[in-house]
């Protein structure tokens, strides 16, 4: 089977972001989505530290460290972009004004519970940032992650074993193997990579999946 690369996953997520959407791309893998947004769509990128209408990274030498993103990297502002304080920024999330947020994850459960902020390791320094606000805020929450851990365990699970970021908050999961919707009936497989069959995907995932309607990966 043809596993998707990280960039192919990002391109696949980008296809589903419509013209006019306000979008927050989480730290890590989701930031790659910005590189694949179709040029013919006007999409407003939000950053939790107080920007809407964020542009690409500045040219070397043009960095302004008063204009940074949530990863604290220098960015630019598009014409029409705006700055605002933290309470407004998180009001945009919590108030449901963002159309989509794309987040990385350690685990997602069959009911859409998300774990992405803490491994629970006893010596880890805990840090949550905006993860919990993003998880419950946007109209649609997309998770983007490898389907399996490095040791081959499914990151889609019956119940999350890592500490939760949000309860029943994920709408869709994009992995290097498949696209799945979280539905009241369970996880519905929308797409699979070429060469992968439903039975094999179910075996790798280790939880019951709903088969129909299935189409080939776009």
């Amino acid at each position, binding site marked *: 089977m043809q596993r998707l690369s990280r960039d192919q996953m990002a391109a696949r997520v980008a296809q589903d972001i419509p013209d006019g959407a306000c979008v927050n791309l989480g730290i890590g893998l989701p930031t790659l989505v910005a590189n694949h947004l179709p040029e013919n769509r006007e999409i407003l990128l939000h*950053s*939790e*530290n*107080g*920007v809407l209408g964020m542009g690409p990274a500045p040219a070397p030498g043009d*960095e*302004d*460290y*008063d*204009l*940074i993103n949530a990863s*604290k990297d*220098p960015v630019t*502002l598009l014409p029409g972009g705006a*700055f*605002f*304080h*933290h*309470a407004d*920024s*998180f*009001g945009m*999330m*919590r108030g449901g004004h963002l159309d989509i947020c794309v987040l990385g994850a350690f685990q997602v459960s069959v009911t859409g519970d998300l774990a992405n902020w*803490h491994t629970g390791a006893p*010596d*880890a*320094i*805990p*840090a*949550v*940032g*905006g*993860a*919990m*606000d993003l998880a*419950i*805020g946007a109209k649609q929450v997309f998770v983007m992650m490898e389907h399996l851990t490095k040791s081959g365990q499914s990151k889609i699970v019956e119940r999350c074993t890592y*500490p*939760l*970021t*949000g*309860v029943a908050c994920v709408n869709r999961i994009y992995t290097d193997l498949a696209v799945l919707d979280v539905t009241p009936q369970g996880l519905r497989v929308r797409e699979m990579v070429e060469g992968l069959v439903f039975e094999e995907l179910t075996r790798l995932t280790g939880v019951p999946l709903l088969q129909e309607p299935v189409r080939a990966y776009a």
Partner: protein
Amino acid sequence: MINKIVPSVAAAVADIHDGATVMIGGFGPAGTPAELIDALIVQGAKDLTIVSNNAGNGETGLAALLKARRVRKILCSFPRQVDSYVFDALYRAGAIELELVPQGNLAERIRAGGAGIGAFFTPTGYGTQLAQGKETRSIDGRGYVLEYPIRADYALIKAERADRWGNLVYRKTARNFGPIMATAARCAIAQVNRIVELGELDPEAIVTPGVFVQRVVHVPGSGLTVTGRVEAAA
């Protein structure tokens, strides 16, 4: 005559007492009032409770205040950074108390503190470790957590321009926590890059009205995040 301008960062922080709760603006380097923090270290107040998004980088600013062992407790959302080793060591040694707050709850608790709200229900954190022991309620079928406001004795913030009434405008994403922290502190102290005459700031564009600001101190060059440039070059 109202004149909130004080002559130096030392004068601005002179009365911060031991045991005070101090909000410190900034998100990473942007908006961090570095010179006010340095003055607080020199001033010597200890046993402080700090409210800030992060817990310091490298050994400057807030990290230096922690390293000097002036801080008893910190409320923040994201202490762990690649270079937060001062905080990390204190935390692992049990030498600092941490209240970890989701970033939006931190912002809203500060906003509530400044707006006279008694408490509020928020969906953020519901069903997670960070809501353990907190009152919850189901409203229209959704779970919410009761969160209380945060107020402070002092807020140290950075803005771009001010007038003598304490009206402030900020620069780009350096705005971040400044406007809400100014409202939630009994004494908000702003370090600013430029001081202008009354009337020079466009009243339609003033972000923080002077009523929320008690002291203004001129720190030339502080409109740019110089520490960010230094760190980026390192």
